[in-house]
Every structure is written in structure tokens, then in C-alpha cells.
């Protein structure tokens, strides 16, 4: 698996993604500076977290106009896997590769702590190594993670099982208490119609080693690897239960 990690001025989780992919997953990863126009033929693209351009306007609003985004959009439209984490999720919404928007947390405060999220759909290229309904622990670290969309969009996302991650209690209940930022329907991550562009607020790349407190993020990268390297079918196909991932 060859993964391009796009670096914007102000990205700060690019290194974490790089380390998770190379040191933990044994994958090939490389940085692509936002002014470049060549993604160098990756199997997948990651838009990492951070504060691109300081996020002084709206999170992700300026990064969306970075030169490299033309290639990212082209890659996504051709069916290439594009994963946006945190600020990357915000950019995907700004670039309209995903519907809806991420606004200021309900508390108006930045939040940095562990959350539990439920894998709502494991028939995707990002979640096939998880079980459906599995509750995993990731970290959130954001000031604008409150997902909003029109009622029609929310209905459509839910109906098409495109809500991939949802904030839940450790016991798996999607309660208001489990919702860290006020996101509609406790939405933590969604996928596009075609199933190749995923955006999520929590950071799976920070949950890949026992010494960091959780290895639950490995499943997401392992899912990508299974899809890309082993051709594990997703959507409509029975998903293989992948042993030994967690």
C-alpha cells in the first residue's frame, strides 16, 4: 500500500499518519506538499489533521483551494481512496467531496480527550477489518467537530448507511452524553456515495500502539490495506471477518 499524505501549511498530524503507516503498518507513505501537482501514483490519499492556514477563516476553507486539491478531487472522482481526518474531514466538506459541514463545538471550547465510537458500517474499504457495531477508542482533538447537515442529507446518510462512525458510550449507546461536540445524530465520520472518500473527526492514527493507550485505530488502516492489497470486497459483498487485527 502506497499512501500519499498531503501536507498543508499548518498541518500537524501528517507526521502521526506517516508513522502509523510506516512504523506500525509497514506500508509505504510519503508527503506531498500542497503546492505540488503530482500525487505520485498512490493507492490512497490522506488529508491529515492540523490547522491548515491557521483555520482563521473556516476550518479547511483555504486549504480547499490549495493547488494539490485539484489532483485530490480528480483522484477521488476516479474512485481512489481518500481519507480525511479531523482538519482533513473539514477540507473534504469544504471541497464538497462530502456533504455537510463541521462547525464550532457546542461547548465553544476545543476538546482533547479519548472518545468511544461505534463502527456503524463495516462494509467499506476503511472498516472491513472491524465488526459491525464494534466500539473503538480513539482520541478527538478539535475546536470545530460539530457535524451539521440539512435534514434531507442526514436522512440520506442514515438511509444509505453512510454514517460510518458514531459517538457512543463505552457500552455502545449513542446518547447525548457520549456526544463530545454536538454533532447531529452523534456523527463522527461519514463516507461518500461511492464509498471511497471517508471523513472522520477522531484520530485513528493516534490509536495504533499499546503504549499510546489504544490500538483500535489499526483496524482502519488494516481495512485499507486489505482492500488495496488483498482486494477484499466491500459493499454488497459478504465481508470477511479478519482475525487478529485488534
Amino acid at each position, binding site marked *: 500500500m502506497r499512501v500519499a499524505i498531503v501536507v498543508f501549511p499548518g498541518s500537524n498530524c501528517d507526521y502521526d499518519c506517516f508513522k502509523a503507516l510506516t512504523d506500525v503498518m509497514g506500508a509505504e507513505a510519503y508527503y506531498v506538499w500542497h503546492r505540488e501537482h503530482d500525487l505520485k501514483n498512490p493507492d490512497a490519499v490522506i488529508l491529515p489533521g492540523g*490547522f491548515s492556514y*491557521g483555520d482563521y477563516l473556516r476550518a479547511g476553507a483555504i486549504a480547499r483551494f490549495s493547488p494539490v486539491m485539484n489532483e485530490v478531487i480528480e483522484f477521488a472522482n476516479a474512485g481512489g481512496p481518500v481519507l480525511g481526518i479531523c482538519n482533513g474531514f473539514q477540507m473534504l466538506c469544504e471541497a464538497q467531496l462530502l456533504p455537510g459541514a463541521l462547525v464550532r463545538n457546542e461547548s465553544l471550547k476545543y*476538546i482533547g480527550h479519548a472518545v468511544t465510537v461505534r463502527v456503524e458500517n463495516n462494509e467499506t474499504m476503511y472498516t472491513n477489518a472491524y465488526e459491525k457495531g464494534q466500539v473503538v477508542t480513539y482520541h478527538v482533538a478539535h475546536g470545530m467537530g460539530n457535524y451539521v447537515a440539512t435534514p434531507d442529507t442526514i436522512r440520506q446518510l442514515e438511509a444509505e448507511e453512510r454514517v460510518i462512525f458514531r459517538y457512543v458510550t463505552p457500552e455502545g449507546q449513542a446518547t447525548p452524553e457520549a456526544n463530545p461536540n454536538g454533532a447531529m445524530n452523534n456523527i463522527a465520520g461519514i463516507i461518500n456515495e461511492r464509498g471511497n472518500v471517508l471523513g472522520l473527526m477522531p484520530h485513528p492514527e*493516534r490509536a*495504533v500502539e499499546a503504549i*499510546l493507550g489504544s490500538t483500535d485505530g489499526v483496524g482502519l488502516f488494516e481495512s485499507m490495506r486489505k482492500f488495496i492489497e488483498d482486494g477484499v470486497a466491500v459493499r454488497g459483498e459478504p465481508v470477511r471477518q479478519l482475525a487478529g487485527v485488534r
Partner: protein
Amino acid sequence: MAERPAPAPREGDPRITPDLVAEHGLSPDEYRLILDAIGREPTFTELGLFSALWSEHCGYKNSKPLLRTLPTEAPWVLQGPGENAGVIDIGDGNAIAFKIESHNHPSAVEPYQGAATGVGGILRDVFTMGARPIAVLDSLRFGSLESARVRYLFAGVVKGIGDYGNCVGIPNIGGEVYFEEAYEGNPLVNAMAIGLMKKEELIRAEATGVGNPLLAVGARTGRDGIHGATFASEELSEESEAKRPQVQVGDPFTEKLLLEASLELINSGHIVGIQDMGAAGLASSSTEMAARAGTGVDIDVAHVPVREEGMTPYEILLSESQERMLVVAKAGHEQHVIDILNKWELEAAVIGHVTDDGLYRVRENGVIVAEVPGQPLVTGCPTYVREARESDEIRRLREWTPGEAEYLPAASHPLKILQRLLGSPNIASRRWIYEQYDTTVRTNTVIAPGGDAGVLRIRGSRKGIAATVDCNGRYCYLDPREGAKIAVAEAARNVACTGARPRAITNNLNFGNPLKPEVYYQLREAVAGMGEACRAFNTPVTGGNVSLYNESPSGAIYPTPVVGMVGVLDDVDRHVRMNFQEQGNAILLLGENRDELGASEYLKVVFGKVAGAVPHLDLEHELALQNVLVELAEAGLLRSAHDVAEGGLAIAIAESCIANHQPLGASIELTDRLPIASLLFGETQGRVVISCTAEDVMEVNRIAERCGITCRRIGTVGPVNGSFRIHSAAVTIDTPVSELAEIYYTAIPRMMPAGADHA
């Protein structure tokens, strides 16, 4: 020195008068020294330079003779005081740069920007050494949370620290906060940064190589923060509010770019030195870099990229606009430097060059506006040993001893007292603060804030580092020498509780006006105590910051010599947490309980009293205790370790129960023949609550005894959401641990309703 013609007076500059000299914070005697140093009357620009460089903030005039007494050397110290940051060797070719700095005065008038720029400045101090910042810690002091103004300051400071560090992408791994009336008008905001580098990447801030070009790099220079260093060197007053424009404005996005650009520059081989334009901006960075190298510099301010038109040389030199660096490049490599900065969407401009005449020469469009010998400017600041006298009032407070009335409530209502202490803002969970910080970015955080010390793993090695900031200002108020010793000892204990060996400290000396004999006494005694403890533990001081004149109309702050300590774990997998891990584990106490109630949080919370003798500190015992903790951790025998501090033994045990996602109960049996108040809530030093498996109790005891540390089993860890039970001959506490957790975690959020930052 040969006679040189004085620069012609610059049109528009004011005439030098005694009043103008006084406004610049210089005494008549100091002004005479300036006349001697340059052999004539200074120009307005030169007066500004001396004012900034000879301020307390830059010149350390009241603290230098005391600071010289501190130990600064150990085999692992690669860089001691005098540079942007201290550096220690941690093995495997790796080195750690670290330093603490205060932003008290700016934060008192503009909490958000004051705190944010404090973080920005200390990060720059670390990455200008060639180290990539890997952690931030914060040490904060405020007045009582009962006050709306204090809540506003507290909320603004926390948001400022968070927004800046979060954006740059540096995890916050620990800190401390106290709320005491003495800080009401003058909060303390100290930020510490830690960076990691390869030993050979260490770069010093020296302007070497005659003819080498000087470049101003990063953000443009504006009018913000002019005379910030001088502002920081006087007492806060009603007029301080009017100095709000002197507070700089931070831009963490530019900082992040500057960080990446600076590290790329250092690795590129195109530069010989780099320094933050921090306090006193271009003036101090350029003069200090030249002074360290024994060279001179020639700068034309017309070449400095500015934000606004019509800035005078005086303003450009003294501006404290943030996110700027001064770089000394190799001659002929200017364009490479500019290219690297441009890649990161930043500016760089050649503004001058290194000379061999030792002069500090400033031009404006070629016309000389300042020309003074560099050495006296940087090192000629007179230093003072002031009159010292202990305050009679404080001595009387210390000599007070608690009587029956003070002991009684603990014996009659122990549970109620325990609950009140757990809900005291000085003890309650700091989660409200650190949940506004990114604590896990860069994926090295092993122990995040909330433990005794933060722990990071060092990639590519088995090692880890632990770091903490500590100081109990109340102890230092009642007894500055013992209080400062305790600050060092507690920091070392906290680091050792994680299994790390304490290695070195950075210090932030926050005091009042040193011209007052009572304050100077505190400074002198605290530095003496700090030096004594650092020598005993072999944890030298590698740098730091002095912040004096921390006074408001209501008086001086508590003397607060904050200690930022770094320790090393040889095997980070052997790190130890403060929370109990498992039902059935044995709970043991290292150290001995004593009848010491003075200076305690108990007296403050129950009686509103700040009085009595501070707890006795035995440096030898502390060192042995550190050794036991490290040895036990390395042997894999510890399931948890938590230092006994404010609130005493009962609070320490409760915290080890509570600091779990689901609290664990505990059953404790105490046999000491001591007054209940002292036994449960006294703050006797040299104690740590540890837990281990029942099978390991014997081995733990054996190791502790061999090192001369009393160790005994006092109880057993209970079930999830079980009972918290303490039993002694005279008293029994028995309460659901979940109720204690509720008090502990909700105390500060309850006092900080939404919108407090907009007060």
C-alpha cells in the same frame, strides 16, 4: 576606545532629559554608567536600547548575583544557562532542550494573548537550539475563583495556551495550577517547552564570522509590544490596563511555519546561528548573539520588513512582534535561506552583517542612529545585592502552631473534610483545563496530564522522558528556603513516581519587587534552598527565567520559584501511573507519617489560615526515595505510584482510586498514633502511595528497606465503584468512591460556567 563622532540627532526624536531617562526605567546611577560606557550622551535610539537590555527582564540586575550560586553542571548537561534553552544528553545520541518562561504581566492585562504568546516564545527558545518541540507544560497561579475577574483571567489564559499549542501541534503533557488570594491582581503564567534533537544538531545563538549576513526572518515587525521587557520589569497598577497595547498578538499558524522553516534552516548548513526575537526584540537578539561571539553587528533598520509605515529605528529595534527570528547565515548563502523561508510562505531579508569592531551599529537608510560598544550593552548592566530582611508578620505566621481547635474538625467530621478538600480548586481534577489542550498529537504521549508527571516515549530508542512543573507558593511564603527545597523535591518525586530518574531542572523565579527588603529576602532564601536541593539530587539548573515586580495594588504575590524538572526512563515500557490498576492489589506507603499540619491545604480550606511551619524536608531521605521508586519501577514491581502532596495522605489515596475511568475502591488501615488531622490531611514530605500485587509485597519491602525507606502495607485496592474506606483506632471513613469522584471531577467545571471567558 577611540573617540568616535556621535550620531547626529535624528529628526523627530525627543531630547534626552532626566524625566525621559526615568521613564525608561533607568536610575540616575545607571544613566551615569551608560554615559561612561559610550563616552557621550546617548541618542534616543541608544537610550531605548540600554533601557531594554538593562531591564530586569533582560539584564537580571537584581537576580544575577543570586543565580550564580545555583549548580549548573553535570556530565549529562550539554548546555547550561545563558543560551536560548538548556540541553541535556539522554543517551542513544539524543538530547533534550527545555526551558520555562513567564508571561505574567501581559497575561494580567490581556489573558488570552498574554498566555498564547508565552507559549510561542518558549517554543521558539527550544527550536532555535535545533530541537523539535515535543511537549509543553504550564504552571499557573490565579486569585480565588470566587471572583469574576479571576474566572475571566483563568478561562482566557487556558484558552490562550490551548489555542496556541494546539495549532502548532505540540502536546501539553502536564502542569499545575493554584488559586490563592495573593495572585488576585497578578496571575502567574509560566510555560515550559521541551524539544528533542540529535546531539550533533545542537546550534548556538552566536553571531560568528565577520562579514556573515544577518537576516530578519518570519513575521513582519509592527508596533506591538514595544518596551514589553520594561513593562515586565515594573509593578502592575491601575495604569497597567493602559499598557494593553504593549501586549503582543500571537499567530500560531505563522509559528508552525517558522518552526518547520527554522529546523530546515538548521539542518541545511546554510546558517551559523539563530535566535528568537523575544523580549526586547531585534535589539536583544542581535546584541546578545554578537556578545556571545565577541563580535559586532551593523544593521540597517530600513531593511527590516515592517508591518506599518513610518516606524522609527527605536520602534523597529524594540518591537516585540511575535514569530520573528534573527538568523546569521554563512556569507554567500543568503539566497538559500530566503528560498527555504519562501517555501514555508515566510519572508527573510538581509538587514546587516557581523563586524569585528565589537560595536553595535544601527543605521537608518545608511545614516548611523546608534553606535555603542556591544559588551556593556549586553553584559554591563549593573547588578545589585539588595537589602534583605524577613517580614516580621510572616515570621509570626510561621511560628504559629495549630491548637486543639484546628485539630478537632478532622477527628469529628473526617469524611466532610475529605470531601471539602477534594472539591478545593487547589486539589480537584484539572480536567477542565487539560481537555482544552491537545495532549496526544505527535503520538508519543504515554502519560498525559492528570498524572504525577507527563511521560513521552523517545522514538527509535527504548527510553522515555518524564516532566513536571511544581511549586507550592504557600510553603515558599511561610518559609522561602524550605519551600523552594520542597518545590525541587516534589518535582523530583513526581518524576520518580513515573519510574524516571530526575536529571535537571529549569526554573522560573516569580517574585515581587526586589527593592523591598522582605521580597529580596524571599528571593535570596528561595534561590539558596533551590540550589541546596539541586545539589543534593544532582539535578542542575540548565536555565530559566526571572520574573520580578509581580505586585498589584494589594501587594506582592507569594514567592513562587517554579521548578520544571525533566527525568529519563531507561525503559519507557516500565512507566508507572498514579492510579490503582486492579482490585486486590496491595497498597503500601513509602515514607513516614508525622504530626505536621502547618501550611496545609486543610488549614486553608477549613480555617482560611495560611500559617504554621512548613513540613520538614530531609534531602537525603528524598534522594533515597527517588532511588527506591526508580528501582521498583525498573524491576516491574509497581502497579501505581502517587506522591503525597496537598491534602495529605487521605487525598493521595483517594486520587489513586479516582483517577480511573471507573473509580476503584480502597480499604485502608492506619495504625499510626498521630492526631487524625495530621495523619489524614497533614502534608509531611517524602511520602508516596504505591500499589503492587499481593505476591510482590515482600520484594517491594525488601528493596525499600535496603535503601533505608520505611515501607509498609496500609491496605488493599477495592472493586470498581466500591467503597473508599479508611480505618484507624480513632476514626472511620466509609463512603462510595464514586461520590468522591463526582466531587473531584465537577468542582472546577461547576465554578467555571460557560461564557466565563467573556466576562
